[in-house]
């Protein structure tokens, strides 16, 4: 019913939060994923970090797009927010750990592909 639809319409604050989370939060999360993955690949498989970083940057626009769509469309905003926050923090910590671990390793010979 239209009356119910109006009564249940999201508040301006809720919409603003959603948009902020999507644009700013989504960008930050994308950045974290973009820099975390090359460290992971270097540590786990020994893949050249610059190459992985380049691939992740190429994909980052798609990742960001997907995140924005998810955040705007989700019916469970709180759950989504918590997932993003927890994963973001976890990946950030892992990134910092992996980065210092990888930096401690001896320099690699150049990998060209």
């Amino acid at each position, binding site marked *: 019913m239209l009356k119910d639809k109006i009564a249940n319409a999201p508040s301006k604050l809720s919409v603003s939060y959603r948009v902020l989370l999507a644009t700013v939060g989504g960008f930050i999360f994308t950045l974290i994923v973009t820099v975390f993955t090359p460290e992971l690949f270097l540590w786990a498989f020994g893949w050249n970090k610059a190459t992985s*970083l380049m691939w992740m940057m190429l994909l980052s626009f798609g990742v960001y797009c997907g995140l924005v769509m998810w955040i705007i469309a989700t019916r469970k905003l709180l759950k989504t927010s918590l997932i993003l926050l927890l994963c973001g923090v976890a990946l950030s910590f892992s990134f910092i750990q992996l980065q210092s671990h990888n930096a401690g390793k001896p320099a690699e010979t150049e990998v060209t592909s």
Partner: protein
Amino acid sequence: MTWLHTWAGLVVGWILFAVFLTGTLAYFQFEITQWMLPDVKQHATPEKAVAQAQDYLEKQAPDSPGWSITLPDERSPITTIFWRDPNASNGRGFEFAVLDGDGKKIEQRETRGGNFLYRFHFDLHYMPVFIARWLVGICAMLMLIAIVTGVVIHKKIFKDFFTFQAGKGPRSWLDGHTITSVFALPFHFMITYTGLVTLMLMYMSSAVSLSYGDRGEFFNDLQSQPPKLQASGESANLADLQALYFKAREDIKGNPIRLAQISHPGDTNATVTFYEAPTQSLMSDYTTLTYSAVTGEQLHVQPVKNSAELTRRTMIGLHAGRFADTQLRWLYFFSGIMGTLMIATGLVLWFEKRKKKLQASGNLSFGHYLVSGLNAGFIMGLPLAVATYFLSNRLLPISADNRAELEIAWFFFGWLLMVCYPLLRGAKKTWRDGALLNGLAYLSLPFISFITVDRHLLNYQYPRDWPLFGMDTSFILTAAAFLGLTWYLFRKWNSKETQNDVER
């Protein structure tokens, strides 16, 4: 999803319209430049351009720490030279000159040509490029979101394609919007994504900083870089750069070269680096070759081998269509026009839908009038801006000061005229009068050329002047389209004049 699609599209729609229109025209930037330099009848060729440029630079800038020569090719008839000069008049540390086929600097009818439209579509104008590129990037990201959500909300894509109904208000605008979107959907998605990739290193610079403290280290990790020799302080004569050019072409199996950069000319450590042009095919090695500019010894050859870097460059190549031949180039252009119309119909649809809903209850808000005015001002204004830019090329005095910047000012004047028009006569009249103005402006272009320059539609020589013929023909067809629109709008609204009209 619909909410996201609508608002993402509206917020950036006007800038995107400008970006798409000028970007589409940029596919023919060299042909546009040819039309805007009708006095350059002798095309520059790369076989002579290097020697001509060296000649010019040795006289003009023998002490400059760096020269840069953009070579001509079949589509571009001029040689563009840049050189570093700390005392440059523009305050940005470099000077430039454009040479014609005889190696003489072009001083008459100075113009930025088609290159202005190309640069505008990501650098905009009258603002720092850093801000412009971020602004355009944000718009492009929202466009990507609009495209993907557009597909998601339009699940019956193919069925609706065949049920187009004209003349039925918002429903028809929706159909128009859907058709132009779907018709070239792969292109729209590709062009938006690759557009973002083109400036990826700027948008994701934080990622590079976080991952590598030093940007240089990142590029070094990707592939070996050419040596950067410091000036030794001892002078030495420059070798014959044209001969080195031929040597470089041999080394890349005859592929064309787009750029030559010379470091420390006149020094014993002078080097020249040639950059392969990715114009032969979509896949290129993007080889750079560095030689000593004194002894001619080859110092460094680097084809790109890294798969990720190759992917990035190929995506940029896809966006710019550098590899495209004439037919493919027209296909790019046609797809770009579809994209431009997609944005235009989307903007109009937004307003028409709300107008229909609110017409019953009465008042549209200021925001609605703003959208309506901006729609008319931009959609009629941008084409008019392009027309006035071309007109200024024919009408401004040949030796005016800052002539190139004056032509650009005329571009913005045409745009401003249409953006202000709704304030004076209302949005509706802006559509009708704007269509008429555009029609007359484009129609006048071939005629004004006939009066003001000695190379025009009636005396073109072929095959040299096919691009100019193409330009004039396009003007006439564009004029026909706008005049047709004018006639249609006159008839449609004159017959309704007796009815009560809610819209201002």
